[in-house]
């Protein structure tokens, strides 16, 4: 399995707010940044990144062994933290 591919088979069902779309549906040099703001995740939508996720299972297992801690695994089609 090589580095990266698509993420999150089940899309991210959000209840948080996101940016308003531009008034014009036409993509123009004047509104392209508004479209980017609309498409990119809002601050609320990005909060999952505030958790100290490791991005590989076995190093996390080794770390948990050393720390005597349990593991919380988020397993998805496509690694949410990118590296697979």
């Amino acid at each position: 399995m090589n580095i990266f591919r698509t993420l999150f088979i089940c899309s991210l069902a959000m209840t948080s707010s996101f940016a308003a779309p531009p008034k014009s549906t036409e993509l123009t040099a004047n509104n392209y940044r508004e479209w980017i703001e609309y498409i990119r995740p809002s601050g609320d939508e990005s909060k999952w990144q505030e958790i100290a996720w490791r991005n590989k299972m076995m190093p996390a297992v080794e770390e948990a062994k050393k720390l005597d801690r349990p593991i919380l695994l988020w397993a998805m089609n496509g690694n949410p933290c990118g590296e697979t």
Partner: protein
Amino acid sequence: MVVWSDQRVQKLAKEFVCTTEEVDILFPRNEWLINHLKDDPAVHLFRDVFGKQSPRQHWDPNPQKTKQGVYAMMPDGTYLSGRFVGTRADQVLELMNEALQKWKRLVRERNLDPKAVPQTAALLEWKKKKSEELGLHIEVHIRDLPRKGTQKTSHGKEVGRHYNTKWLELTKAEAQSLVPTGSSWQDVPNNVRDKLFTNGLKDIVYGQSPGWKSQDVRTASLKVRQGKKNRSGTIIELAGDFDLKDNSHQYSGKILGKMLYSPKEKRITHMEVVATGFRSGGTTFNFRNGDEAPAPLGVSFYVK
């Protein structure tokens, strides 16, 4: 996932070593992967040790079914808790509390000596590493755009409430080919244009979809030119259009945006590019069933 934004979840998460992972390399389902990973310790731990202890309602025994979800375990694979995909904050909280309760019992039984979990940010470290290795490491987001006269898709989803993310990698040579030599429009080489289009312009708002094949590129153009210069470098303007189509789905539209080339770093350091257009149809796992009619879709390409 909004579940991870929940403050109660974030607080409890500090008790665990939290990790993400590609589920198919923990529980391979196709023959090649099964053989390739037959001695893999992560597969053994997740599938053979943890999975065998999981209650049936949280672990479909069918080996062909995905095992996406959230799971809690001891480092030796001892089952603590788990939920199949589709988890909500209250379900994850329940899972975490259940897991911590069992773990605390095991701390006593096994005479463990728990230490604080370092709150490192693997995602940020990974992004930094990739941006140093690559020419461009592009964060791609995909979202349905507003539809006329309705806030619901034809398959009942609220338009704009769902998005997906993927990463696109350009080598240093590929990234360099996006840097124009002057202020006149010039074509981006076809291989780089097609890589951006076939890998980036995918309708994966609700699921997965394979990349477009080169023959699916019906028409495509992508041009760049130098714009203004500022203290940070030279603005690069980018514009183009695309029509991608195979026998089950289509996406066509325009792409527009700007990048910043830093002469000091000799590379593109910022990218804000967006594609908008209409998609139709669907693929096996992109969950467009019932929403095949043409509807607007947007894709952003971002580097910062």
